[in-house]
């Protein structure tokens, strides 16, 4: 295996253009599992750990830029925990401390798992994915970037630079159902915002359809919203749970999340 370790975004994008089959790796918490189990045998990997432009986060005219290399631990232990609280709650449920230290919110977007815990909190905040290649830069709403289970809209010469969102500052929460408090792939999950400013309830579910999905309604529809979210999902039966259980759990979670956010 040939490992390229670029130190700038430009250099990384040039590698990406030159080796379209090379696999980018950031925290490795998805990539290395595939490598260790022989599900992926990349001839070349592009190690993004030293690319400065993907690190950290910043405020930009009221919006928030989160670098692709931001780890879950970064989200939980920084000021971000109060700026994007649902994302921080979700981050705290990911794996275990060593997984949270290495796993990144950019890797979570690229993997595009229906169960990606960092996805619902960003859907309810209207996040856009910022993409770059040697050809151009573009931005896509997160909902459009997530194409299907483990498929995304990334071109073979592109990298995710980060995501941008405008924190609404409204009551929000994240909830996840699983057999344990740690090391759990969600049976289902939701992120919910009760946005009094825009008179809107926004919920996004995980592990209850081919991609994480967003549902909105006016605050006046509170009494039917849990049912609406549950109906909008398209869960399947799998080893973790049945479709019927997932629909039921979504109803319960949305009800509890509304209680938590609206009292």
């Amino acid at each position, binding site marked *: 295996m040939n490992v390229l*370790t670029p130190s700038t975004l430009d250099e990384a994008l040039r590698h990406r253009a030159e080796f379209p089959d090379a696999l980018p790796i950031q925290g*490795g918490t998805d990539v290395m599992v595939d490598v260790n189990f022989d599900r992926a045998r990349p001839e070349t990997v592009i190690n993004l750990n030293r690319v400065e432009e993907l690190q950290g986060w910043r405020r930009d005219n009221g919006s928030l830029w989160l670098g692709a290399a931001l780890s879950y631990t970064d989200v939980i232990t920084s000021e971000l925990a109060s700026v994007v609280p649902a994302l921080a709650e979700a981050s705290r449920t990911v*794996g*275990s401390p060593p997984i949270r230290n*290495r796993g990144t919110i950019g890797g979570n977007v690229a993997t595009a798992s229906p169960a990606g815990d960092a996805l619902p909190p960003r859907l309810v905040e209207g996040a856009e994915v910022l993409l770059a290649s040697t050809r151009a830069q573009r931005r896509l709403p997160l909902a459009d970037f997530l194409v299907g289970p483990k498929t995304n809209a990334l071109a073979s010469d592109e990298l995710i630079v980060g995501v941008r969102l405008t924190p609404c500052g409204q009551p929000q929460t994240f909830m996840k159902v699983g057999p*344990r*408090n740690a090391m759990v792939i969600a049976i289902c999950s939701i992120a919910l915002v009760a946005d009094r400013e825009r008179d809107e309830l926004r919920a996004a579910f995980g592990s209850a359809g081919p991609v994480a999905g967003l549902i909105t309604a006016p605050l006046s529809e509170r009494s039917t919203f849990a049912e609406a979210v549950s109906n909008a999902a398209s869960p399947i039966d799998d080893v973790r749970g049945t479709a019927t259980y997932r629909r039921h759990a979504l109803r319960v979670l949305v009800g509890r999340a509304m209680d938590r956010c609206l009292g």
Partner: protein
Amino acid sequence: MLRDRLGLPGSKNACEQGECGSCAVLLDDELVCSCLVLAAQSEGRSVVTVEGLRNGDILHPVQQAFIDAGAVQCGFCTPGLIVAAVDLLRHQPDPSEDEIREALAGNLCRCTGYAKIIDAVKLAATAGGGST
């Protein structure tokens, strides 16, 4: 790399999927599962395995506490747990039981039932395990 090339068998090679924590090391002072880090990604960075914690012949207070509390049975999980406990005590020298459980949630032990492991971390905390 750590075990076969560098001869450091402390970190275990078990699940290879980040689930068991028996391969835990400190990479630039950050707790990671070494099975999920390419050797090339650690180039130019410090890697501390369980072997690197003791000071000469003197065991690290966390290592000593695991022995004193009887937290080791077969010992397979022990190196990873010790590294994770050292990481916890560096960030939180006086952890509550919940904090200990959350910090060690990524380490599986098939033998002890965890109670003695929690005792060992508490013992290490009183012995000042966070200061080294």
